[in-house]
């Protein structure tokens, strides 16, 4: 089971700022191990962020996103206490969902 995401969601005026730190290897498939064998690609492909059930951001990622990806964005329409739910899916089909409330 992958480690949980660190999510921070703060209300700044009429906008909500969301910052996420995910825990993932994001292996590119370009590197080789000490035996010279290619390390297979392993990376997050989809990220979905919802606030109170409504999608506020969705993303498709390639292998070029850094290890332990960081993401930050703002949206309007959120309120203090609303629930932010973030889900990622990687190319092995593994999923991780975490949530936070807007502070």
């Amino acid at each position, binding site marked *: 089971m992958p480690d949980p995401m660190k999510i921070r969601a703060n209300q700044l005026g009429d*906008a909500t700022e969301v910052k996420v730190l995910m825990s993932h290897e*994001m292996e*590119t498939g*370009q*590197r*080789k191990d000490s035996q010279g064998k290619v390390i297979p690609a392993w990376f997050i*492909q*989809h*990220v*979905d962020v919802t606030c109170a059930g*409504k*999608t*506020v*951001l*969705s*993303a*498709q*990622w*390639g*292998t*070029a*996103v*850094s*290890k332990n*990806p*960081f*993401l*930050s*964005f*703002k*949206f*309007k*329409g959120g309120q203090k206490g609303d629930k932010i739910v973030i889900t990622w899916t990687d*190319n092995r089909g593994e999923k991780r969902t975490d949530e936070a409330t807007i502070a």
Partner: protein
Amino acid sequence: MADIDQTRRKALQQGASLSLLTLLSAAGWLAPGIAGAETWNKSAFDAHSMDETMKALNGSSPAPSKDVTFVATPDIAENGAVVPISVVSALPKTESIAILIEKNPNMLAAVFDIPQGTDPSITTRVKMAQTSNVYALVKADGKFYVASKEIKVTLGGCGG
């Protein structure tokens, strides 16, 4: 005979345009909220050039725009494995923002769908193999716009 040929041609044409549509929606770029769809746009992420990427994203060549800007993005990245990139679009009806890195093995790094109500500004971190131009590709009101910035990398983010 001519009649039959005509019908056949029409049928073929219709068939072709239908399958093209199906392909496009399968690629996920037609419907809004594409990135949330289960289909990951493999051809776009496998592309090695701007042209290939644009083709895979079903877009024409993008117009350079001053309304797409990089903020809090370094000119020199000491570590190519972690390059912070912030893209802001001032274009109305921004639908999606993509980050492309010219000299990476595959150009496309990430595509973000911006639903209504979400600020067209994204911050993330990417890997860069070497010093390269970075493109911010924005789709706004059905059209594509682009801005670029060169980031110098002193230590590559791949291999090593």
